């Protein structure tokens, strides 16, 4: 602090002021010096010291075969697999939340039968591993060889089974997320809506759900990303999603690691896009709330 910079010099100099009585010099306002963040710097350096060599080894290690990754990243087979994964994710998420919202409103209804059925559903489908469920639906033909006169195997192809299995699983979790969201809305909101003569459907759609969304979106974003990756489980019933598509390639070429990297990179890319989307959706539903904007 030997050299005095001009800005602080002017700040330190007592400015001649009309309010100050002549002859009295006001003491200079003390300058604010931020605390030194030595610990932060040290920990950052330590973490980088570990990370950089790891990153270098990943890039340098020829076994990763980044050239093979690049070759396959945009091939038709991989992109078709990615397309199916995205389509499955969106469909399962939409159907799962539609069914989940229905289950949540049943659970919160005055009707004890509806409440019980909803509770039982969530209990059953949260208890069952999704893999077990998929295998079960895959073998449903053993229980019901025909459904309404149509052979079960013709009716339910693996993709249909994947949609059904994943949706039923998703709905059980979505029901709890939506129920939590609805319960987070203050009771007075419902009473105000009732006293204004708004019908049950209008109350739910226009008053309760938009406010519930603030509590629903963060866990729903989590579920969406979980579902994206969770759809990879359908590869066990030979649905050609992203994972199964790269598996088909490496079973032929034995380039296991680079092809798994292809799938991984795509999962990372899509997850990143979804996370950004979640931020925008959260901001939308925070409108009017304390601290928004």
């Amino acid at each position, binding site marked *: 602090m030997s050299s005095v910079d001009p800005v602080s010099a002017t700040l330190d100099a007592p400015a001649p002021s009309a309010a100050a009585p002549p002859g009295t010099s006001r003491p200079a306002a003390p300058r604010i010096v931020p605390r030194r963040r030595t610990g932060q710097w040290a920990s950052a350096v330590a973490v980088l010291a570990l990370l950089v060599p790891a990153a270098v080894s990943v890039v340098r290690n020829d076994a990763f075969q980044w050239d093979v990754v690049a070759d396959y990243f945009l091939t038709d087979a991989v992109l078709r697999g990615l397309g199916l994964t995205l389509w499955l994710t969106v469909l399962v998420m939409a159907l799962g939340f539609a069914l989940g919202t229905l289950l949540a409103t049943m659970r919160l209804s005055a009707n004890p039968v509806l409440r019980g059925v909803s509770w039982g559903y969530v209990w059953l489908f949260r208890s069952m591993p999704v893999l077990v469920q998929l295998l079960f639906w895959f073998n449903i033909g053993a229980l019901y060889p025909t459904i309404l006169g149509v052979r079960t195997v013709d009716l339910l192809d693996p993709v249909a089974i994947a949609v059904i299995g994943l949706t039923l699983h998703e709905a059980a979790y979505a029901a709890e997320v939506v129920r939590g969201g609805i319960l987070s809305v203050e009771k007075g909101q419902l009473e105000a809506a009732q006293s*204004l003569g708004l019908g049950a459907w209008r109350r739910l759609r226009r008053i309760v759900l938009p406010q519930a969304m603030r509590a629903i979106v963060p866990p729903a974003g989590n579920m969406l990303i979980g579902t994206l990756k969770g759809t990879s489980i359908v590869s066990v019933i030979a649905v050609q999603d992203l994972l199964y598509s790269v598996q088909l390639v490496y079973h032929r070429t034995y380039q296991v690691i680079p092809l798994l990297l292809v799938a991984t990179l795509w999962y990372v890319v899509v997850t990143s896009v979804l996370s950004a989307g979640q931020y925008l959706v959260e901001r939308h539903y925070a409108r*009017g709330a304390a601290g928004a904007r």
Partner: protein
Amino acid sequence: MSTPSAMVEARGIHKSFGSLDVLKGVDLDVRAGEVTVVLGPSGSGKSTLLRTLNHLEKVDSGSVRVNGELVGYRRSGNKLYELRERDILKQRTKIGFVFQNFHLFPHLTVLENLVEAPVAALRRPKKDAVAGARALLDRVGLADKADAYPRTLSGGQQQRVAIARALALEPELLLFDEPTSALDPELVGEVLDVIKDLAHRGTTMIVVTHEIGFAREVADTVVFMDGGRIVEQGPPGQVLDHPRHERTKSFLSKVL
């Protein structure tokens, strides 16, 4: 016993929550165009009574008529059958309710708060509802806040919006449950002014409040409740200045 012009006729209202008897036989008459102020200690059943008047709370026995129409029920022989939800909602559009904590819809703008019910419950064209809402906002002095979100307004402004929201349905009767109790003292006046203005326009109102000065100035009838019963009622000059019952006297000595 009921005069032809009685707009509200509550008869023998009983209500309990579990083993707690909250209303123990309340009779209340309110004539069209009059202001009734309900006073009483906390827990005496004032809110519960008000809520039974628009069927937000179901009665255990007794009946409520507004403009001669049974609220919440249909009479057949000697039985009262609860109405379908749709019919109850229709009745509620004729009975405005203003809550202690406003209960504005926080995710809707002030204008949207006012437009929602006329459009959804009365099927008014959106354009008419918006025009009506703007006129009402002007009346409560908040024309410039139409596009604001409720949370950005002061408590007094929020309550004025809530009153305008209730008025947007052009109700025959307005119920106020302690409309100024959640407000900072300096904001009470602006809300009471809006209610006084409504009184001067001949709006039929039942107002639960602890504002004795307001009761003296605007009320046609003051009702004093205690322990789930109406202890005494009459013109403000009588109930406030010459209370006959000990409980009224001791309550007034505490709040005055």
